[in-house]
């Protein structure tokens, strides 16, 4: 495994590469079609380079452990608002998740519906392209429209367009209080309607999830609000009243227990150690229950107000036929290497978009050495 300690070393290694490279951060997210290539780890590029709490901005080297960044932010009462998922339990991996890996996968959690995805918080990148050139885009300010937005393009490109060396974020204050409204016993369709009603209210919902086999057993529909103490109490009351027609609700106001509930949703803990493949489906929330009915899934978790569905299904199957006629996409997150070779991990694209993807890869990585084939 090559392990550069500086951006310049990283550039030299890419430039000198004689064949395909398999790029890793902490190695905790083995997602995508299997890549055959020489290992290249960016974990050696580590450390927070700039943090200005008064400007809500942080810049770090790509190999910085996510936990280190979260600790630095927490010390100033701030956080990454997009609530990145930890894939280790779901995927059965070990290692130290890095911030570069989070960006490469555009990894976002339940708060995505309110605060945006990783790509929305990302304000700057430096990366090494397939030629070995160091390229920068964006910067350290949160409003920046200077030139094309390659920052967004790099987020979620899984190391196929460049190897990230540095990433910059807009961060947000960590709220003083949290409350989770829990509705019990709803069927999927009713639950998604309840989540929609909550999200259409002015009470600033920061999490909206549902599982028929929830974290406390039985069907649970979870709605999270965060903020100053009195404001959270007020909004929790208003939301309970608003949702009264959907059934009985309870409120979880203990910060630790609330955090545990959302960790369960964020990391799809209910699927950890359970058999089968795991798919991640992004669609219009109201289409969710219909798709789920067609999936023949062994387990389902709805997040993002119903717009994100985690489905555990029998191994080796392509579920995409169940999405026929539905706008959205499905990604195969957990499956054997054999299945990930056989079944497209990322949704196949219509011809003109596939041509653009090929064109972009040819421009950024003309030798085809950066995680080749990972995204299809």
């Amino acid at each position: 495994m090559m392990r550069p300690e500086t951006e310049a070393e990283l550039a030299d290694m890419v430039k000198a590469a004689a064949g395909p490279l398999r790029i890793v951060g902490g190695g905790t997210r083995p997602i995508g079609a299997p890549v055959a290539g020489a290992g290249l780890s960016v974990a050696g590029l580590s450390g927070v380079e700039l943090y200005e709490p008064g400007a809500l901005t942080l810049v770090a080297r790509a190999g910085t452990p996510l936990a280190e960044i979260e600790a630095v932010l927490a010390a100033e009462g701030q956080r990454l608002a997009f609530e990145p998922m930890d894939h280790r339990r779901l995927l059965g991996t070990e290692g130290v998740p890095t911030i570069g890996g989070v960006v490469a996968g555009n990894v976002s959690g339940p708060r995505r519906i309110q605060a945006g995805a990783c790509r929305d918080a990302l304000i700057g990148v430096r990366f090494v392209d397939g030629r070995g050139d160091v390229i920068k885009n964006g910067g350290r300010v949160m409003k920046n429209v200077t030139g094309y937005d390659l920052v967004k393009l790099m987020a979620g490109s899984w190391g196929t367009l460049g190897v990230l060396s540095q990433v910059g974020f807009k961060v947000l204050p960590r709220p003083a209080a949290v409350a989770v409204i829990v509705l019990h016993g709803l069927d999927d369709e009713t639950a998604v309607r309840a989540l929609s009603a909550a999200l259409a209210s002015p009470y600033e919902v920061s999490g909206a999830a549902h599982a028929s086999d929830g974290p406390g057993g039985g069907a649970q529909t979870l709605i999270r609000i965060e903020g100053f103490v009195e404001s959270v109490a007020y909004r929790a009351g208003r939301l309970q009243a608003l949702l009264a027609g959907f059934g009985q609700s309870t409120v979880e106001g203990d910060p630790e227990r609330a955090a545990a509930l959302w960790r369960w949703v964020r990391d799809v803990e209910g699927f950890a150690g359970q058999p089968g493949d795991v798919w991640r489906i992004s669609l219009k929330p109201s289409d969710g229950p219909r798709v789920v009915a067609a999936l023949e899934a062994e387990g389902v978790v709805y997040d993002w107000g119903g717009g994100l569905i985690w489905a555990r299904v029998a191994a080796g199957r392509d579920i995409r036929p169940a999405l026929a006629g539905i706008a959205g996409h499905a990604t195969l997150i957990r499956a054997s290497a054999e299945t990930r070779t056989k079944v497209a991990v990322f949704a196949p694209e219509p011809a003109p978009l596939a041509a653009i993807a090929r064109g972009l890869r040819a421009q950024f990585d003309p030798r085809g050495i950066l995680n080749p084939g990972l995204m299809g």
Partner: protein
Amino acid sequence: MDMPTPDATVMAKKDQVVRRLMSVLPKGAVIHDPAETRAYECDALTAYRCPPLAAVLPGSTQEVSQVLRICHEEGVPVVPRGSGTSLAGGALPTADSVILGVSRLTGVLETDYENRFIRVQSGRTNLSVTGAVEEDGFFYAPDPSSQLACAIAGNIAMNSGGAHCLKYGVTTNNLMGVTLVLMDGTVVEIGGAHLDAGGLDYLGLICGSEGQLGVVTEATLRILPKPEGARPVLIGFDSNEVAGACVSDIIRAGVLPVAIEFMDRPCIRATEAFAKAGYPDCEALLIVEVEGSPAEIDEQLGLISQIARRHNPVELRESGSDEESARIWLGRKSAFGAMGQINDYMCLDGTIPVSSLPHVLKRIEEMSRDYGLDVANVFHAGDGNMHPLILFDANKPGDLERCEALGADILKLCVEVGGCLTGEHGVGIEKRDLMAVQFDPVDIEAQLRVKDVFDPAWLLNPAKVFPLAMTAARRAA
């Protein structure tokens, strides 16, 4: 301002191009009489003008596709145009170009409150998107100052912001999908009513690409439930440093206001003379607005006022009613109009790290003295997006050039302290030649390669964004 020499071959076949365009568009949708094309000779950067070869106003995605296919076949450059409110010259034509205006594409295609999105045609104005949903308690968050006139197409091209982006983000954070027509006429759907890309994030790339990668004809936009209410507090300070420190302290305290606006003394005086909003005559003025229920607003304004008092403000006025809120906002909202009363002005748009605010304001004051041109500052302080207004006299020979030189120096300063050339207006032609200040050649080359993929013939808005010398070979090929 250099623009490429018009392509003589294209100029010579105007009649043929016009005839072909007329064959696919309804009567009146092709404008080619020189007396009429003049209406499209500039956008809101009025210092630069050039009538186009022709202008077309298609009424559907299909018609846009046919127009682009014809222009592609004929090798004619196309300049997409929203409402023509660009302050950066993003819609400035060249004499050999066809202006593709989206002003007939104004419809609402779908409104979905359950899934919280609206799908509109791209010529619809920003404010009328909110107008279509506000009776039902929703709004579209990005709110550029030109929102009454500016089109969603232009908002997407420039990734427009507004006063409220500290909380709600800019266009790219509120855009869910587009129908995009490529230069060869191919229609592609990107994104939609679901969140996040299934593959590469083309949507993020399209937004802010200044009409150089494709023409957006339809857009799916995220709509949000309106907050229960909003109220500002006005805080005046004797020094810019202290005002800057106060902004930083408010943010560090965990409050996330929807807007933190900043005005300096020249701006306060000018707006006071014009709008008589009752602002104090002080060095720096902050308007901080928060949202929520009446009690939530009181709590947040209380906290902000408490922080502000530690910095010894010369004035602190919490709004307690809609009427008081309107008075506090009155001066800020008339700032640009007030400047226009005094003089011609040029509005800059650089962003700086918030921590550099006092230093940058001091340097701008020095430069203003050196150039002998007044500069008033009004800007979004929470995100560091500055709008220095340079006052000049367009009738005085040499004044515009001096103003542009001062503007360039101010933008270079923004980059020097770690910021950027443009926070929400876009590069256009205005900042095109400054790109090399912010980017190394290799950074720019990476962006040019993206355009090579979407528009290999370099026909879409080709003379914008990048220094002409860096694109000459590609445009000529």
